[in-house]
């Protein structure tokens, strides 16, 4: 079992209901449990299909089972599937050492007369805030890349590929290939292609 760079590693996956948050945490969790680690995953409820903010907390340890929720300011890695949701997580869980992977494709909030909820912040400024609150930021155009592949949902696997390439987690491509085959037996090829695409996108950023 590879040693973790800290124990536990606190990873947060954030996005908007329906984006596939749970899937990302489950792929990572299954691969890490197979590698012998203790994994605890906690999630947001109720908002999962209904356009609300969602997050999954993934706690990775080689020693013991941690609780399903990360305390304020204790996030180590944030995988943001949506930029506003990434910033929301940094505000609550960020710290001087947090590493962020962000998919810059916005999902607008549903508007309501008189609420002003529909106004989406200026994207470059928003990404600037994210970088300012992170020790290192990878901007991974996952949705754009996934749409080129013909299925926006593949953005999730692209982000997993990006995370893999950062080397922060004790995972290799083989471990993820195995989990992809188990979890998506009908769509192995596109998912593996997306995983590789995510790895390449991060290589370029480096």
């Amino acid at each position, binding site marked *: 079992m590879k040693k973790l760079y800290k124990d536990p590693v606190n990873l947060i996956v954030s996005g908007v209901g329906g984006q596939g948050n749970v899937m990302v945490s489950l792929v990572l969790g299954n691969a890490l449990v197979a590698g012998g680690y203790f*994994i605890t*995953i*906690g999630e947001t*409820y109720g908002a999962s299909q209904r356009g609300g903010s969602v997050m999954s907390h993934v706690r990775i340890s080689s020693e013991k089972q941690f609780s*399903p929720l990360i305390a304020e300011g204790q996030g180590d890695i944030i995988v943001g599937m949506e930029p506003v949701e990434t*910033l929301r997580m*940094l505000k609550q869980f960020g710290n001087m050492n947090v590493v962020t992977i962000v998919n810059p494709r916005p999902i*607008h909030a549903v*508007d309501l007369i008189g609420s002003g909820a529909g106004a989406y*912040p200026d994207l470059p400024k928003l990404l600037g805030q994210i970088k300012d609150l992170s020790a290192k930021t990878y901007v991974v155009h996952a949705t754009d890349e996934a749409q080129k592949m013909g299925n926006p949902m593949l953005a999730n696997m692209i982000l997993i590929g990006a995370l893999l390439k950062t080397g922060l987690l004790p995972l290799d491509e083989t471990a993820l290939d195995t989990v992809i085959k188990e979890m998506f037996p009908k769509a192995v090829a596109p998912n593996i292609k997306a995983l590789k695409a995510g790895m390449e996108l991060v290589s370029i950023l480096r």
Partner: protein
Amino acid sequence: MANIDINAAGQSQLFIGNEAIARGALEAGIGFASAYPGTPSSEIIGSLAEVAKKQNIYVEWSVNEAVALEAAAAASYAGLRSLAAMKMNGLNVASDFLATIVLSGIGKKGLVLMVGDDPAAHSSSNEEDSRAVSKWLDIPMVEPGDFQEAKDMMKWLYELSEEIGSICMLRSVTRVAHARGNVRLGEIPATEHKARFENILDPRNTMPTSIMTIPTPLRHAFQHMKLDKARARFEESSFNRYVGPEKPDLLIITCGSGWLYAQDAVNTLKLESRVGILKLGTIWPLPENLVKKCLARADKVLFLEETDPFLEATIMEYSSSLSLESRRNIFYGKHTRHINAFGELTPDAVIKAIAAVLDIKYEVRDAAYVKKIEAVPQDYIMERMLTFCPGCPHRASYWSIKNALMMDGRGGFVTGDIGCYSMALGPAGFFMNRTHQCMGAGSGLANGFGQLWRFGFDQPVIAVCGDSTFYHSIMPALVNGVHNRANFVLVIFDNGATAMTGFQPHPGTELTAMGEPAQQISMEAICQAIGARVEICDPFDLKATTATLLDLLEQEQGARVAIMRRPCELVRSKKEKPPYKVKIDPEKCLGDDCGCNRLCSRVFRCPALVWDPVAGKTRIDEVICSGCGVCVDICPEGAISKEEVVLA
């Protein structure tokens, strides 16, 4: 859902708490399991149903929780280990039978009732602590503190149930039931299930009497003896344990989700040498000797538990029975406001409570970083209000309800029920629902409002319910309304599934939990047989639906029914491609010059209708548009159009 019957004894799997509970039931060799879906308990029966045929067990979604518990009890009487599962509210529905099976006893095989509590009401309309029921009705209860225990406790509970001859309860909370963690698997035994109910006149009968609660006081006394037996087992149970120094400055007493939070907090605050944790897995009856020993370790005691101060009150009560010299503890918890007596536990709340009791300062983050956070403009992190999914039939149904009530003009309103459509309390359903309580409540209320005409009440009343709820708890209210000629319209949202909890089948659907053909019960046939006028609407046809509702509102002759029939979009989209390609003509959309006040993106509020502030017009987000085409009929300028998608 994970494959819970994987043949991998000794290996670790990533399971949610509910899957672990289901696996535990399989490892106990159960033969029968029944439930009504409810968050956070649904995945137990859901995952058992997937493996039922292979494991040769029977699994059903029952019409409600009372029937689920009674059905599981019958299996116990006939010699099968059996399980009933439900959420906390279901326990209320099943509690009448529960109160009596405590006295009548179970069969030769174990009966376990699993209850999922939902602290913070993530997916509920109230907060409720089922542990109180175990004390109230004299039922042994355990609560797992992590995922491994969820499985192991379930298996062990069958042994206890059979040893003492009582139904036993397993309580779990959302953060255990729905969180995921490691579970090391055990063996699933090869069980040959043979069912037989021993008749009292049968010479082979070993059951001395019929199943009954009389003589009641005597049987009540028996149950207390069973509780004493359970207590003796609990004193020795490895599900209870103390970790920490011999004489800590602070003793934490915790159970359930608090166990992991307490360990994390002690770790975060680096207090391993000062704080000890007594983790209880067996909750009721209290293992008094174990508690007494631990209370002697420290003066200060902090309770961490969800939702009510159950251990807190029980242990404080118990400590008052101790001798004066051993009564030395100062108790902290919900009664001292160190922990809230509402909502769920969080790691932050636990850290704060420990720091407060021990008078320690804890800096969450360094000042420079906090400064950066404070510099983030407030409006960068906008609120995302929950709403119906793109293409959800409920949005269309409520659009018609709103318009019909407005056209009717007599101040009519909607009494609500529990399901996705509860969101009609807010802007998702145009603030139409005016009541929100429990399953069945809206129709019961409508029965009352519907009789008030004799006191000058002249507003039309629409009670709403989902299809699964109709079978669960609406039928008696409709019988009452038709019989007593109550004046209301019942709207049933028939989307073909128990959508809120994960698309479980119900009596109106084609298949059983185990995927076998079911006898479908027609809701319109039931309503007609009761004697109600019944209209069936396609909610996507806004014009016709509104007209039908208006007609029903005007009729004013007893209870009448409109069925809004359209499959849940999440179910439909898994089987079919979007029916339409929806477009907005930027020439026709007048934006803020229209005078419609952005009707589509700010009132109708489908998430796929996005206001583009640069163009000053609405556009379609193609990634999330479901292609239902309903918005075509709401744009006053006719700027939205739909084109049928021709499948290649």
